């Protein structure tokens, strides 16, 4: 059984999700694919549907418009999955915390849906690409 667990750590399929973000983290996510920070060497691949995904990259503080859609996508991903909250917006809704249209950071919204969801927080606004890679890799131990 632990061979399968070990192989889980070597190949992570990632699905990108943007909820009310300032598109800076989204661009840093794309930068991970460019030649300088190529993530494919760790087996990380961007996939097309939440069904295949193991990690959900969520950028941005969740606003009311995006919340139902975000929870729907979380329900669809097969369960041993990792939610990566990107940037200070993902971790704590950052500077937009007490606005009327923001309904809480990623973990507050997710805890309603599934209390023991595994969440990785990558602070920084925008987090450095090195920090992102390290965050995802460190998140693997959690699963």
């Amino acid at each position, binding site marked *: 059984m632990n061979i399968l667990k070990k192989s889980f750590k070597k190949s992570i399929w990632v699905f990108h999700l943007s909820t009310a973000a300032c598109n800076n983290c989204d661009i840093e996510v794309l930068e991970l694919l460019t030649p300088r920070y190529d993530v494919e060497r760790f087996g990380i691949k961007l996939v097309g549907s939440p069904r295949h995904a193991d990690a959900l990259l969520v950028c941005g503080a969740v606003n009311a418009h995006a919340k139902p859609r975000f929870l729907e996508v979380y329900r669809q991903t097969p369960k041993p999955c990792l939610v990566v909250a990107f940037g200070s917006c993902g971790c704590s809704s950052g500077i937009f915390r007490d606005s009327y249209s923001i309904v809480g950071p990623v973990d507050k919204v997710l805890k309603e849906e599934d209390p023991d969801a595994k969440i990785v927080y990558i602070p920084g606004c*925008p987090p450095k690409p090195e920090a992102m890679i390290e965050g995802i890799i460190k998140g693997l131990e959690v699963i």
Partner: protein
Amino acid sequence: MKQTIIPLGPYHPLLEEPEHFKLYVEGERVVDLDVEIGYNHRGIEKLAEGKTWDQIPYLVERICGICSTSHPMAYCLAVEDLVGCDVPKRAQLIRVVVCELERLHSHLLWVGLAGHFIGYNTVWMWAWKYRETILEICEKLTGNRNHYAMFKPGGVRRDFNKEQIEYALEHIVDVEKPIRMLTGAILDDPVIHKRLKGIGVLTKKDAIDYSALGPTSRGSGVPWDVRWDEPLDGFKDLKWKVIVQKDGDVFSKSVVRLLECFESVSLIKQALLNLPEGEAIDADIKEVPPGEGCGRYEAPRGEVFHYVRSDGSNMPYRHKVRAPTFNNLPTFKASCKGETIADVALITASIDPCYCCTERVAVVDKNNNEKILREKDLLRLSVDKTKSVMKKLGKTPPLYNMEI
């Protein structure tokens, strides 16, 4: 003709920004266009009313990730207009350097995406590779790749020391060569000429009627550039020119952006070279009298407008923010009409929207069978067209950069 439109959720594999366009089509021709935004609303203007004058630059910076220094710049100009103080020269030149650096890396990001839409992925990889050097300069000068937090009403928060200036001057030079190569790759390539010329034309009258801003309006011959029309004292003695193109199609908008990169590089060099020595970098405003002020500055995508009204307390009574894309987005109604779906991806990219919304275009057929065209569809359609254009021109397609 009854139209059934099924609004699918905005979440989509390669999406950066949840944004949704609806095209009403007859066959291949686009008849009408509807835009649905609001997925990114964070209530910034309401938050601004709860923050003090000095805290707002941090909030305003996070409106848009790519033009993250134009908003604080316009805000500081608005407050200075309200207070009526004048900013020391050195602070102004530092502001010019940071804003021009950001314009460079924003334009390079756009060049990469445009290359990606035509199907040249190597252009995407190259543009983003050379963009890294600029981000490094930004990190060296201001400490962070994107949100620099350099400005505050009345001046600049941090000064450039000698060693930082040398580093910047030395590295800004080796950015010029790749930009020239990229410009060459894009401007003299006959296939790109055929692909970009004559589509998505925004006539001069339309540009004025929609009050388009920035490269979108300068591409149609409307010479609006806030740096020229309302120059800061910093700009007065720097030599540069506004780039204007006449025919308003996607090609001229690209030319405007690429030539602006060269202007930015020369501006940065001039500003860094004649930084006045040892001056104070802040006019340190003590308190803000009641009154109102507007600030305008030229972001990479157009003019950013901030209006500030104060009632004497240490928090603004009202703070209105308007990003350039707010004016540029409705221009799609004029420029997308009559174009084929394959070109829509290019036209939406040509105004370099603050959120790249070419990912989600829902094509509604007139005889109401609704076909959802995703970004890859648009990409492939536009790439097919590039290939057919290439065959006509008798050029072999570039060997390995057409792969999506």
